[in-house]
């Protein structure tokens, strides 16, 4: 039962993360391969602030601000690049952020990570607090889901889609492509920061190893599998990926084969990503086009 709660909490947090990536990748057509950087910035900001005694809710708000600011700061120069190059710049940015977490020991304790991140004060300790935390996550996830759906069906969202399809058309319609893209990246980063903070307070221990390229690939898989540019796609993708990832633990695996599980899972994820591109690039929930 507790394990089911754990899976649901993970799904809920990852949904926010995937929705935030989808806002950039699916709606605006910005291929952000360093999205985990903002997840990490959110997690570390919230963890550091709450460990030094600030209230958890305030730390989370700061985490969102920090991630959003980092996103906007990165976006201003990086958005001069197009397509593949933007992807590489963001990927490199994420690696730089990870190296920063790893090497600035005075702040982040380096590879040892940050243990003992507090949960919100109104929550019971340990397992007893899980149902409430799940509720908290679900409320936030639904909030984010509704907000993004509202955003993407509004004129702003349609403008984003125009930018994705053809920048010149957007310009001809009098939209500033640059401003639209910055807004999209900043909003995506704020939400990724929120997901990171939620995750840090749930797991209560973070280290630089949690924010590698692998996490970006995982969330990319969720978005691509579910369907880029749709509201339900990323959520569906997350549910499938997390469920598959956690269900493996219940398989009757003979002792001694434990070390093969993680690489096999990774191979499956990579394979699914390639197969989706080959056979069904639009994802399981295709985007509705009139």
């Amino acid at each position, binding site marked *: 039962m507790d394990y089911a709660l754990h899976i649901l909490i993970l799904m809920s947090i990852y949904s926010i993360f995937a929705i935030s990536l989808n806002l950039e990748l699916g709606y605006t057509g910005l291929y952000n391969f360093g999205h985990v950087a903002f997840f990490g910035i959110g997690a570390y900001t919230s963890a550091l602030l709450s460990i030094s005694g600030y209230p958890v809710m305030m730390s989370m708000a700061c985490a969102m601000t920090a991630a959003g600011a980092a996103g906007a700061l990165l976006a201003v120069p*990086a958005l001069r690049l197009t397509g593949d190059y933007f992807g590489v710049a963001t990927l490199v940015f994420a690696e730089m952020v990870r190296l920063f977490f790893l*090497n600035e020991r005075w702040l982040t304790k380096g590879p040892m990570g940050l243990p003992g991140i507090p949960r919100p004060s109104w929550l019971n300790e340990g397992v007893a607090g899980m149902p409430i935390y799940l509720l908290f996550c679900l409320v936030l996830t639904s909030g984010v889901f509704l907000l993004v759906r509202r955003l993407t069906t509004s004129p702003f969202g349609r403008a984003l889609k125009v930018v994705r399809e053809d920048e010149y058309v957007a310009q001809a319609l009098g939209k500033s492509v640059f401003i639209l893209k910055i807004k999209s990246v900043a909003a995506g980063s704020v939400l990724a920061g929120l997901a990171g903070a939620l995750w840090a307070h749930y797991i209560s221990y973070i280290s630089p190893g949690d924010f590698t390229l692998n996490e970006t690939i995982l969330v990319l898989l969720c978005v691509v599998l579910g369907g880029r540019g749709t509201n339900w796609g990323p959520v569906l993708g997350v549910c499938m990926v997390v469920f598959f990832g956690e269900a493996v633990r219940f398989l009757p695996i003979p002792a001694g084969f434990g070390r*093969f599980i993680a690489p096999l899972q990774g191979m499956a994820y990579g394979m699914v990503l*390639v197969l989706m*591109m080959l056979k069904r690039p639009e994802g399981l929930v295709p985007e509705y086009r009139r």
Partner: protein
Amino acid sequence: MSYYAQLLLNGIVAGSVYALFAVGLTLVYGVFRFINFAHGELIACGAYFVLFLMAAPLSLPLLGAVLPALALTVFVGLAQDRYVYKPLRHQSHITLLIASIGLSFFLRNAIQLVWGSDLQTYGIGLTRGVSFFGLSLTWIQMVMGGTALFFLSFLYILLTRTLLGKSLRAVSDNMALADIMGISMKRVGRAVWLIASVFAGTGGILMAVDTNLEPMMGLTNLIKAFAALLLGGAGNVWGALIGGLIIGVAENLGVAFFSPGYKDFVSFSIIILMLLFRPRGFFSIAGGVR
């Protein structure tokens, strides 16, 4: 003074191997117009195949294992093209990019599955260095520099003096026109993957002889190759060569000024700076292999 000269020398040796990686990456980009993220895994494949051939059932000597290992790497490179990139050739760049990320993740995990994620070596042991003018150079470093020089001069002759090289340059200049003129795209495509795989595999083996093997070695070196590619301008083979040397030197001289934990920061910063200020490289050409 001789400390810096030594770092410079080490940098040139390391840089000549980075040049091998970058040349393959830039050739693929020049002809097929996408960044092959799985190029890094070709590097790792070369190194691990040698390890495989040197291990128990076959126990070949190091030199005897090199050629079959390269043949296997070429096989992986051609299979990448045949089963993933070729069917996607007329899709958008982004589809190819995501597929190559998925493929790279798949291969990296496959390596981890077979050989585990620990550091490994060929177990050749330390070799005595040769000193001259107060500088020292190990035999391994000499082999690294010599092999790189050999392969790059071979490439120079291939590109400038043979018909295949000429058609390769024509295709990267204008694929449609080259096709109309009756240049066999199949042949050129195969040649590109062959060169890219052999160069990547050789470089990987040299790296592994000099340091060690680990599943992430592909990704680490891919980022350096990418920095070199950008310095030279995407698609520019000679630019990539010089770019590789610059990255190697900058990284090794950087150690004198920053903490070694930030060694990779050098190539990251070069990537970011180049993308922002000279996205076409220092030897800017409009496109194509020169």
